[in-house]
């Protein structure tokens, strides 16, 4: 329609802008929901009530916090590497938004959807670690530097497990395009189709994904009781806000990738043979399925975070290199064998 009014280039540009604004808006709204959810979930785990003063059940609390963060002063540091210091939060948030745009929320609602989608998502999300390293380096703070170094070691290591476990699923799926991945689960989610190796891959993906987002028992880069706040110690105002947003959205991205690859994305729960049941399931819109699954995984991640103590840096690397990587490799081989011999459902 737009092309009839203006040249094609402009139309594409306007489309991009509109979609970009939509993504950022959704990004912000999701972050607010996630932060509120985290506060409430952790409060109930800890025998507390959580925020309950601002608005009904404290629902306005997060908005108040966002406004606070927006109007706070952004402090500039003496002796810091100004350019890198200010670049860092943007790197983190851009990586996070890029990865976020890959996620198919409903049928036909994937913004970036092309034949190497999974690969692109992994690549985009790993830019974030550069931002964290820059933050640590640029802050001119010893705690930040230690936090950033930890983060580098941790994220780069765990990228391997994430990659391997997704690769395992790619073998089963036979495609890397997100829309096809979801379509492929119309007759049963991959976690059921791929049975044992898929389950192992799911667990490994959750552990490694948790480590990727610097959360839960893997929050060493910011370990507040050791490094005060790790790599973002020196940030204030919205610069800190970007790190904060990115942390929550990364958690959501990890959860929604898990939901898409293992739990069928927006695809309703189908059982082969039960057509009437399948039809009833189809009445529930796809995005509800998607968000339901994603938030279920988010809840799992929060459950882990609020239960476990923190690991130590050598233990974290030992867990990755001595356990997760070998297991994922063997798992990959098993999956290949299963696919070759057609042992999956």
């Amino acid at each position, binding site marked *: 329609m737009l092309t009839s009014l203006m040249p094609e280039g402009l139309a594409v540009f306007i489309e991009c802008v509109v979609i970009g604004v939509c993504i950022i808006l959704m990004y912000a709204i999701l972050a607010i929901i996630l932060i509120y959810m985290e506060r409430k979930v952790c409060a109930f785990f800890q*025998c507390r009530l959580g925020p309950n003063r601002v608005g009904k059940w404290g629902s306005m609390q997060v908005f108040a916090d966002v406004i606070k963060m927006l109007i706070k002063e952004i402090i500039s540091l003496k002796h810091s590497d100004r350019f890198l210091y200010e670049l860092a939060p943007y790197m983190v948030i851009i990586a996070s938004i890029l990865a976020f745009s890959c996620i198919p929320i409903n049928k036909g609602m994937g913004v970036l959807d092309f034949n190497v989608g999974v690969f692109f998502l992994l690549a985009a999300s790993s830019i974030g670690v550069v931002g964290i390293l820059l933050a640590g380096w640029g802050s001119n703070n010893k705690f930040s530097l230690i936090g950033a170094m930890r983060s580098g070691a941790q994220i780069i290591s765990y990228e391997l497990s994430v990659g391997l476990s997704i690769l395992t699923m790619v073998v089963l799926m036979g495609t890397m395009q997100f829309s096809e991945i979801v379509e492929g689960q119309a007759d049963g989610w991959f976690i059921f189709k791929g049975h044992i190796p898929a389950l192992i891959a799911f667990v490994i993906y959750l552990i490694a994904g948790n480590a990727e987002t610097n959360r839960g028992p893997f929050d060493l880069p910011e370990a507040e009781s050791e490094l005060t706040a790790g790599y973002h110690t020196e940030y204030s105002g919205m610069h800190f806000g970007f790190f904060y947003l990115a942390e929550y959205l990364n958690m959501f991205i990890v959860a929604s990738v898990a939901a898409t690859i293992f739990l069928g994305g927006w695809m309703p729960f189908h059982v082969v043979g039960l057509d009437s049941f399948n039809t009833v399931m189809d009445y529930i819109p796809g995005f509800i399925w998607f968000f339901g699954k994603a938030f279920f995984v988010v809840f799992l991640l929060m459950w882990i975070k*609020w239960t476990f*103590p923190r690991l130590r840096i050598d*233990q974290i690397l030992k867990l990755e290199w001595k356990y997760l990587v070998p297991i994922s490799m063997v798992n990959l081989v098993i999956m290949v064998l299963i696919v070759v011999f057609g042992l999956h459902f």
Partner: protein
Amino acid sequence: MNEIIEIPLERFRDEVLKLRTEKQMDFLESLTGMDWGESLGVIYHLESTVTGEKMVIKTSTNNRENPELPTVSDIWKAAELNEREVYDFYGIRFINHPDMRRLYLRNDWVGYPMRKDDDPMDERNPLRMNNEETIDSTTELKLNSDGTLEDQENIIFDDREYVINIGPQHPATHGVLRFRVSLEGETIKKLDANCGYIHRGIEKMCESLTYPQTLALTDRLDYLGAHQNRHALCMCIEKAMGVEVSERVQYIRTIMDELQRIDSHLLFYSCLCMDLGALTAFFYGFRDREKILDIFEETCGGRLTMNYNTIGGVQWDLHPNFIRRVKEFIPYMRGIIHEYHEVFTGNIIAHQRLKGVGVLSREDAISFGATGGTGRASGWACDVRKRIPYGVYDKVDFKEIIYTEGDCFARYMVRMDEIMESLCIIEQLIDNIPEGSYQEKMKPIIRVPEGSYYAAVEGSRGEFGVFIESHGEKNPYRVHFRSTGLPLVSVVDTISRGSKIADLIAIGGTLDYVVPDIDR
């Protein structure tokens, strides 16, 4: 009271070495700097962990300009920080002590405030507006083989080391304690503890207060052992005056001490878990600690600084609800402690973080004088309640919890088990509190007979001792508190070398020091 044996300066080193080797005096309980007017000196409280024998020795020098005494820090490691404290307050330099820096006061402080002829309030020490400079070297007064003395400079950290500050404002130091840590990657090479950020000069203040007034300050030392600290001071004064408190008071004090111990150990559990990142467990401890604080509040009116013990008794009689609420609390706590173990003790990550980390050997524990849960986790039976029973501890049946591993996990388990033992003690006492007066009639002005007195109790985190020297006035000539936390801080360097920076947090958490008690 043991007689104080005076050893002349010339023979001091030989005599002390003989005591250490022949009489096996391996535990330096307390080291007190003194100013006797014409002479300056030090009083040492010694104990043998082999024979149980106790003795008190002192030595002094008449040289007030340049007082120099031989160090004992190579014999008992506990003396390392204590001698620095004496240097800080009395200006006594210890020959061959490797690190003669001030411990509590600023490096640019002028004078030695605990000397009787020094006025810390005069214009030499104005309120300084500049930051204290951190110095990376220290001096040692070295005795050469030919008998001459010379100043030698010892380097603490050199320029090429990557030194980070843990504290004074840091979430894991539980107060304003400052560690300077030299790192290699994440591994700790060396650690230097800097104290004094909350030093209030309580011992100096006590010298100008009357005895009942000094009581108020003890609650502000180790705020998680308020009852016990005050119990020690009251006991010491009562012992000096020959006052016998009633049976009822003994029972009340013992029950309060044990409640306080549970309170402290619950807070220990909470803070350790929080430091290790288990935030949910933190709230479990605080939820139940609240119940104890409520019990305290009803009887004492306070929740943290209770001001309950007085000379000759306690401030008020027990609240009518007290017995009922304590009796409700005991089964509640026993029932709920399994939650603590489920959420933290049994967790594989907690095991990995605590087991084999920060191992303190029994010899080191004794040499540093690290009493309390820390000492007992290293296999040293150092419980004052068993060694020198006070209150009604001789009438109750309880186990002294001892682990032998000496690592963080043992220190943690000692405290968790002690909660159960304390419940057991309270249970035996709560039904049998005898009738009687809750306070002896004391004279309006309390004068302690001339002499020196020492009394110790088992505080929440070790032996808390009070040393009083009285000249028969209405205020004490010298009061010294044996800090429970100072020895714990002095072991940190030894046991954290070679471990990761995250282990330092676990070590600090399980040593369980409280900073106002270190700084006094």
